[in-house]
């Protein structure tokens, strides 16, 4: 092979070396732009990334949604035309629920794992450390729930009026503790208070197995109803 041929081969290789990477680069870039155009054409049909949303559990039945919506509206949490202040009184609760007390309680059965029953001493709305601990524990287990319900009651001892007032004080004691502990400006839009006195939806012994702040012995119906039932509700309205 002559040196001229060798030189020619080298020159040819040089030209290839000079041109080929650029050609490849242009091919890559052109291919990427083509793929992007195709992708954008298909983007509308493609499933989007999941969007952050509140939870909506299976227990959120139409019945519960209906009650919840009425309670929240009537108790001043959502919408307009509420009761003119925070919370619902027993009469209102019965009216908005439009169901028997036992059916009302049954709506909460699926929340057994995450609800709590704060048990008060007789004729008292004071929270002891165990009550406070349980309130904080239940409140911290919010997950994707939107609404925190405090449903307070009183045992039948005493007058109806007194028990109505006592259950209101109990609900507000829970609310006050939440405000002091968590200092969450959203609380007013999250917490629904219902005080039922002795008049509506009294708890039965079925609730003995739930998380309670009272001791194992404090499980008579009277003990269970000197209480505030607390739970987050995972329902999208």
């Amino acid at each position: 092979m002559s040196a001229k041929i060798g030189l020619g081969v080298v020159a040819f290789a040089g030209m290839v070396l000079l041109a080929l990477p650029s050609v490849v680069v242009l091919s890559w870039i052109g291919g990427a732009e083509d793929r992007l155009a195709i992708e954008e054409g298909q983007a509308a049909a493609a499933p989007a990334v999941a969007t952050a949303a509140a939870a909506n559990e299976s227990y959120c039945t139409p019945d519960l949604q209906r009650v919840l919506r009425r309670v929240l509206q009537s108790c001043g949490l959502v919408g307009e035309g509420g009761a003119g202040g925070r919370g619902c009184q027993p009469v209102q609760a019965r009216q908005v629920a439009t169901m028997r007390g036992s059916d009302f309680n049954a709506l909460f059965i699926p929340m057994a794992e995450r609800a709590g029953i704060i048990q008060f001493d007789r004729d008292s709305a004071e929270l002891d450390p165990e009550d406070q601990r349980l309130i904080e524990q239940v409140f911290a287990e919010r997950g994707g729930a939107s609404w925190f319900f405090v449903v307070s009651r009183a045992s039948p001892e005493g007058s109806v009026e007194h028990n109505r007032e006592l259950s209101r004080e109990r609900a507000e004691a829970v609310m006050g503790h939440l405000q002091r502990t968590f200092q969450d400006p959203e609380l007013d839009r999250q917490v629904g208070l219902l005080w039922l006195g002795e008049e509506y939806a009294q708890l039965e012994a079925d609730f003995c197995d739930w998380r309670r702040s009272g001791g194992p012995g404090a499980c008579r119906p009277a003990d269970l109803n000197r209480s505030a039932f607390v739970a987050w509700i995972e329902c999208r309205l």
Partner: protein
Amino acid sequence: MPTRVSIGSVRPHPWTILVLAGAFAGCAFALVSTADFAAHLDRQVHGIHCSFLPGVGTPDVSGATGCHVTLMSPYSSVLRQAVWGGVPVSLPAISVFGFIGFWALALALLGWQHDRRATAFLVLATLVPVLTSASMGFISFVTLGAACKLCIGIYVSSLLVFVGALGLWLRSLGDRRRGASQMGGTSVRSRAPDAHAKHAEPASLVALAGAFAFGVSVTLVPALVYGAAAPDYSDYVGTCGTLDQPEAPADVLIAIGPQQASVTAIEVLDPLCPACRGFEDRLDASGLHERVSRQAVLFPLDDQCNWMIDEAIHPGACTVSEAMLCAGERAEEVLAWAFEEQERIREAAAAEPGAARSMVAERFPELAGCVGSPTARARLNRALRWAVANELPVLTPQLYVDGVRVCDADTDLGLDYTLRRLLDRAEAGTLRPEAP
């Protein structure tokens, strides 16, 4: 001047063959690496080849390989603020190896395998990939903690071409000494240079200067072509949505980085998310973090606290997020630790749900009482609720500059390009149109 030699005289020396083989391998590794990089110019997620056999095997889509870490790192390309994704450093590597192969071929064809100057030039040329490989290898293994098989292929190829070139040059020095001895009448028996070499003209300085200029051109031209032809994605900047409720509760915001800039940003992050760590590295390397006062909102992809996912993607992330909220001004310290220990924490938490809490308590004993407390859990829940209020996508990281979202496709390779433009517009007050 001899101009003719027999074809049998063009015999590549074993050292030359070694250089050619190394250059070919280096080219192949760099080509696959650059192709993987360039594939991302379509703004989509792609698998990345990561094999000691370049281009062989199924591209990895998990993002867990060293090749992925390296490719997505701020060191994989240059000029990132000017060109979307930057110009990949592996592109010049193709040209450099190509030139080395070309020069080795020229040595064989032009009879310069015994030429001291021509072979010395080859040694100098091979120093380029060797020194680059040494520095990139240090970055890869030490800074990034990643073993990228394609990169290792390039490092080994660099070593091969250097060893081959060095061998060829040393041999040419030996030939020269033997030639001098023979001219002095000493009857030293040695292998004579091949017939072509005996008659070839030595490489002139002009020829070497021309080769140098050619080498520089070969290296620069593809990079310039890439830079000039790369897609202009500036139209995408600021088109991926805005925050409906940019005001987050103060107690869920965590200041990250310098806070002197007038432009504010919210970063949605998960302390155990590898993409968030890579994002942080890229942001730091870009220098653009100095131009924005950034606050993090935690969004752990862990079903212990995040109801929006079915199973924990990053086990332990809820606990570490609570630790960051509990840490107050030391939150960045917790984040740095979490980024450093991500894999270990995730693995431990996947095996034993309480492990993350123990690890936090061991590293930050002062936070042990706070992590897991109702108040810490409620604060973290508020952060998640903020994501719900803004209907954010369930993914991390996300960055919102003055409430305007950086597109997902721009949070990795295109971050510098996009963020610089967003910040320019935010500083000029033109990022968000005023409400009528």
